[in-house]
């Protein structure tokens, strides 16, 4: 197994695209090293992307924030503005593993590991984040919900790397939230995850809403019907019932030791309702 740590995206793409055998991108490595150890993957080439400046920075862009794909959870938490502007995205990223994992784990890695239960992905989808991918054919922007196709399956082409995410500009009264269900208080994989992002109008009504779910289908889901159920409301009881109904209709979970199909569908509704209430309270207090 070869190891390369190029300093430019172009060099990284060229290495990945020209490798005849299997090649893997190494960001934080918190999933990849475990997969290497257990022979889940046996690549001929590892391309460490952490020396590429563009992947390691957070900066303002077009009124929003551009977050490098290899910025760690710990760095996101310490950013002076992100946590107040995008509390849901940051709380989701910070739910991934322990303090030690946070020191290494990245948004790009959490997405490209291709797990349906990745915590930061529903939050990014709800936020309307777009990923910038760079490959042999150049750069393109992709909605985050269009990247994971199924467990460990991505829509990225050969040699294509997710370089960064763009979080859009935020209107004054807008907020997001992410909640997950796990059978303990810490250190676990989501049985259900729910991300909600809301924008309020001048009178406190919901002008725009995006809802996304994790761990209830083969890939993280954007649920447009659930967002629509919220728009025009002030989150009254009827609206919350419609929200839960739309969420449950979108769930296609597996049955496994962490949760039955029936349980996941029910809890998806509950988690989404609570995330919507949390996002609404945050937006109203701005």
């Amino acid at each position: 197994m070869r190891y390369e740590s190029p300093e430019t995206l172009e060099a990284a793409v060229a290495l990945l695209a020209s490798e005849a055998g299997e090649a893997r991108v190494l960001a934080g490595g918190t999933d990849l090293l475990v997969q290497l150890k257990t022979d889940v993957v046996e690549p001929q080439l590892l391309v460490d992307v952490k020396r590429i400046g563009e992947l390691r920075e957070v900066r303002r862009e077009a009124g929003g924030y551009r977050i490098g794909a290899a910025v760690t959870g710990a760095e996101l938490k310490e950013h002076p503005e992100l946590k107040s502007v995008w509390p849901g995205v940051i709380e989701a990223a910070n739910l991934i593993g322990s303090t030690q994992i946070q020191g290494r784990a990245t948004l790009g890695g959490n997405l490209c590991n291709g797990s349906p239960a990745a915590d930061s992905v529903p939050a990014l989808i709800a936020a309307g984040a777009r990923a910038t991918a760079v490959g042999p054919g150049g750069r393109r922007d992709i909605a985050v919900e269009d990247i994971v196709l199924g467990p460990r399956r991505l829509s990225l082409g050969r040699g294509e790397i997710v370089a960064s995410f763009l979080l859009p500009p935020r209107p004054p009264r807008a907020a997001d939230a992410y909640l997950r269900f796990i059978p303990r208080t810490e250190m676990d994989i989501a049985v259900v995850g729910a991300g909600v992002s809301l924008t309020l109008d001048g009178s406190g009504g919901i002008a725009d809403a995006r809802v996304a779910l994790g761990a209830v289908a083969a890939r993280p889901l954007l649920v447009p019907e659930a967002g629509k159920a919220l728009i025009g409301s002030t989150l009254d009881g009827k609206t919350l019932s419609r929200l839960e109904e739309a969420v449950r209709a979108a769930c296609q979970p597996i049955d496994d030791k962490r949760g039955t199909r029936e349980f996941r569908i029910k809890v998806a509704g509950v988690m989404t309702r609570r995330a919507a209430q949390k996002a609404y309270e945050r937006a109203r207090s701005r």
Partner: protein
Amino acid sequence: MAKHHIAFTVNGDPVEALCETQQTLLDVLRDELELTGTKEGCGTGDCGACSVLVDGRLVCSCLMLGIEASGKSVETIEGMGRGEELHPLQRKFLEHAALQCGICTPGFLVAAKSLLDRNPDPTETEVRYWLAGNLCRCTGYDKIVRAVMDAAAEMRRA
């Protein structure tokens, strides 16, 4: 495949080693540099026994390749005491009987020191969350948490 020649610092001292691509930083510390204070527990980032600091950041050394440490500053349990003098955390772990078999202890000490370096006056909740990635199957954690809180109090008075 030729081995990689890597150079970095451990507890302030420059070190060099030869390693294979798949060797973790933990493997390099223990097997190449003979710094066996850092322990291997699970080897998959779940237990925290292999905790070290890399450029000031707490990480599991089992989840990082040795070659990724090139040019970095690594701090391990071996750098914690000063000669024969124990760090206050080490002393408090002994006083509070915060260890039994001892395998998790270096990881807990490195992780706890990293917390106190950032936050000299943590609440018990903050200590418990910060150390949630360090598993101990002997003590039941209460003695460890008490030792960390007591060490923090002593260090604030110093």
